[in-house]
């Protein structure tokens, strides 16, 4: 049901002239994608630095909260650019992306990374700066930072693999993969 709904949404977007124009443009699509990739340096770059501080591996002489607070704005600016360009990229190729196994994993990882970030913030506030000046924050926060690094790395990795056609619907795949990628027609035709 959800797959059919998502697919019809994708077809509706796909029918828009702007979607086709963007996909077939000579330079615009490439520049949107370049912006998406280069902004990794701002968003993920700042995130890496904050997490490395939380792991006690960088800026150990600067209070952890100072690093987190000062880098929060550039990180969120980077995130906003990534989400915006990401949505434009989805709009340019909606049907294939909707049925991409990698894109689906990426969205799940994004949600997980978001929840982890919220939990991390809550934990940081609850600790109330008692460890702020310690070179190495408490274990609970280090685990959160490690998880954050792993989840965001996963988002980048699955984002890159969307470009590969290994598990596209038109390929001969086991039923399980058709199900995971939401290949509605292929599932119906499966014997």
């Amino acid at each position: 049901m959800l797959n059919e709904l998502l697919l019809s949404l994708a077809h509706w977007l796909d029918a828009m002239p702007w979607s086709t124009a963007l996909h077939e443009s000579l330079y615009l699509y490439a520049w949107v994608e370049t912006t998406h990739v280069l902004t990794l340096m701002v968003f993920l770059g700042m995130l890496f630095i904050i997490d490395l501080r939380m792991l006690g591996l960088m800026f150990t002489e600067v209070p952890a909260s100072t690093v987190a607070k000062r880098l929060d704005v550039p990180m969120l600016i980077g995130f906003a650019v990534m989400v915006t360009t990401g949505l434009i990229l989805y709009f340019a190729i909606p049907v294939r992306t909707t049925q991409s196994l990698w894109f689906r994993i990426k969205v799940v990882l994004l949600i997980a990374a978001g929840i982890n970030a919220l939990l991390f913030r809550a934990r940081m506030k609850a600790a109330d700066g008692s460890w702020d000046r310690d070179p190495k924050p408490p274990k609970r926060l280090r685990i959160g930072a490690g998880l954050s690094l792993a989840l965001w790395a996963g988002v980048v990795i699955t984002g890159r693999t969307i470009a590969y056609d290994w598990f596209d619907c038109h390929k001969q795949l086991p039923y399980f993969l058709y199900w995971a990628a939401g290949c509605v027609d292929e599932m119906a035709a499966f014997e």
Partner: protein
Amino acid sequence: MELLPFFEWLEASALGAAAKAYGGVFAVVQMFHLLALALLGGTVILGDLRLLGVVMTDVPSETVIRNTQKWFNAALALIAASGVFMSGAVAVKLYYNEMFWAKMTGLSLGILFVYGVRRPLLLRFEHASINPWALRLLALTSLTIWLSVAACGRWIGFS
């Protein structure tokens, strides 16, 4: 100097064969290339934005530069190693790719700039003793070089 034989040799070498053997291996190495890009870019951007007085203004710029340089080195090593591996798979194609040469030119410039100019200057002198416009120029040059290298890298695939 004729470089084509080198690229032909690279593609025929064991490295080229390994990088070509499985699409999956190439993809995994490329992922590390991307993650290293984020770390390398992050350390460069943070240092330069601090020199420009945009972020972390309450932390001495000497502290920011000192903390970012070690991780810049690690990221550069990872990005270069993964880059060499990937180039093994498509060496001859790269030889004829303009964006590849633009990127290599920018990269050489960047390495000379970091280890020959930016770092000696910023680590040896107190930043307050350097002309503020020289610091700003240093930061803008650094950002321009590394953003160009990254953009050219992405465009190797488009051209």
